[in-house]
């Protein structure tokens, strides 16, 4: 049997779809409500009192477009981390799947693709909500699901690799505090990164979430030539983390 068989990957994804039917309402509810709350709090709150325009955009537009990245990281890295750990350790789902003709590479790839598709979809919600707050539709926005999907693949792989590396579920606190929160805060969602010290500005360029924020804003207000480089960077991020997730999960699942 060859590597990365589509039948194995779609088989694993069909399990995710079957499970998703039982929890889609709660996930969708929070995915819609969260951007509304953020937009009300930051966009309308700060926007109407302290901040007027940022980088030539209304603050609501600035935050609304940036929130896509927030939706992506929170619907990819965290579900991947907790989901993979629970399925591996507590539910023993991965044991069941690996007893069928599926290998670890296919399992990890399917999990990443499912999370990527889900995040690509949920990542668009902040934009849709922002339109209700005055963001004008633009043709470039049609590419936002793709940008969100590619970025989410990388973060899903990051989550799976993390799940395969920790001994206890509590250790995720270190990862959320030391990795996910800083990435989220220096993505340029709530304030432009050029207000950060120079060193952090350079570091932010390596933050995939920042690259996604920029791509989404450009999709809404006009692309630039460098956006192809940003997209390539996100693809490299996804591929590198994919291989790492496969490596670490193989080590965890195969004795």
């Amino acid at each position, binding site marked *: 049997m060859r590597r990365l068989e589509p*039948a194995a990957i779609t088989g694993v994804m069909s399990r995710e779809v079957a499970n998703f*039917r039982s929890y889609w309402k709660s996930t969708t509810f929070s995915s819609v409500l969260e951007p509304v709350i953020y937009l009300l709090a930051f966009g309308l709150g700060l926007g109407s009192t302290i901040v007027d325009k940022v980088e030539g955009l209304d603050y609501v537009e600035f935050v609304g477009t940036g929130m896509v990245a927030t939706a992506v990281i929170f619907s990819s890295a965290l579900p991947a981390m907790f989901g993979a750990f629970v399925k591996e350790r507590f539910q023993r789902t991965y044991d069941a*799947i690996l007893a*069928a*003709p599926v*290998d670890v590479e296919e399992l990890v790839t399917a999990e990443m693709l499912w999370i990527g598709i889900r995040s690509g979809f949920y990542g668009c919600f902040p934009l849709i909500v922002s339109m209700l707050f005055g963001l004008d539709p633009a043709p470039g926005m049609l590419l936002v699901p793709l940008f969100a999907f590619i970025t989410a693949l990388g973060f899903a792989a990051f989550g799976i690799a993390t799940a395969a590396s920790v001994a206890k579920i509590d250790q995720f606190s270190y990862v959320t505090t030391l990795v996910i929160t800083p990435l989220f805060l220096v993505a340029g969602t709530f304030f432009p990164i050029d207000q950060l010290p120079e060193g952090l500005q350079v570091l932010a360029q390596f933050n995939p979430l920042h690259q996604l924020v920029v791509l989404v804003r450009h999709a809404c207000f006009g692309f630039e030539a460098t956006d192809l480089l940003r997209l390539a960077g996100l693809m490299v991020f996804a591929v590198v983390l994919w291989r790492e997730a496969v490596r670490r999960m193989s080590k965890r699942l195969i004795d």
Partner: protein
Amino acid sequence: MPAIELKGVVKRFGEITAVDGLDLDVPRGICLGLLGPNGAGKSTTMRLLTGQAIADQGSLRVLGHELPAEAKEARAEMGVVPQLDNLDVDVSVQDNLAVFARLYRVKDVRAAVDKGLELSRLTDRRTDSVEQLSGGMRRRLLLARGLMHEPDLMLLDEPTVGLDPQIRTQLWSLVDLLRSQGVTILMSTHYIEEAQRLADEVAVMAAGKIIARGKPHELIAKHAGRETAEVYAPPERLAEVRATAEAHGLTVRPAGPAIAIVGSERATDGAIPPEAIVRAASLEDVFVLLTGEEAE
């Protein structure tokens, strides 16, 4: 060609050698009971056979496929029933089966699901979530899930562990059905009755090795003789009976609150006390004598 061929298989976990030079052949069409106490290496052997563990030494061939290189091909032709329930509890009964039909590349998923529901006698519960099922129903579903692709070989890893006797009997009927259809079965268990009832042959495993193998009646005849005398008495009296029997060259083993004098048909006068209850020798006698562990 046997369904399973293991030669000199060794599997270590750090300092612990879980499987220690294991040689095991399972001919096609039989049910082999892998009987051993906890920690004997049964579950590790099962994981080696699915490629979920990689042997440190030795060769493994399953249904003609060399492991671990062709583990995926081997898994496509075998079904596995795990020791622990790993069904998706929030998902319906039929969807649990459908997912595995797809994983096993079954062409007609709907027909396979219907067949699985029929086998597990859950047709009228098909849309219920697994969470709503009883323990016995979940076990039947696990077995049906492993059979979605009509495999040539089934690996049953302690299939009835922790189940009450009634549910265990239901499962045994299903395993019996598979045997009658010619499916090769390797079943690990530490329940003597299960092995005696279902297995054509029994391999007793201890400390990572097969220490005895044969048909149940052959093993009994070879290791335990024809009869066993059980004595129930206070500890002081048991100690006295044991000493007398051993002095007559008989083998004595613990049997819960009693002692069992194995091969009592060979006893000379006075070796067996009058209060002893004589019964036919059993696989349990063999198991305890060979492994030194109390049977369950």
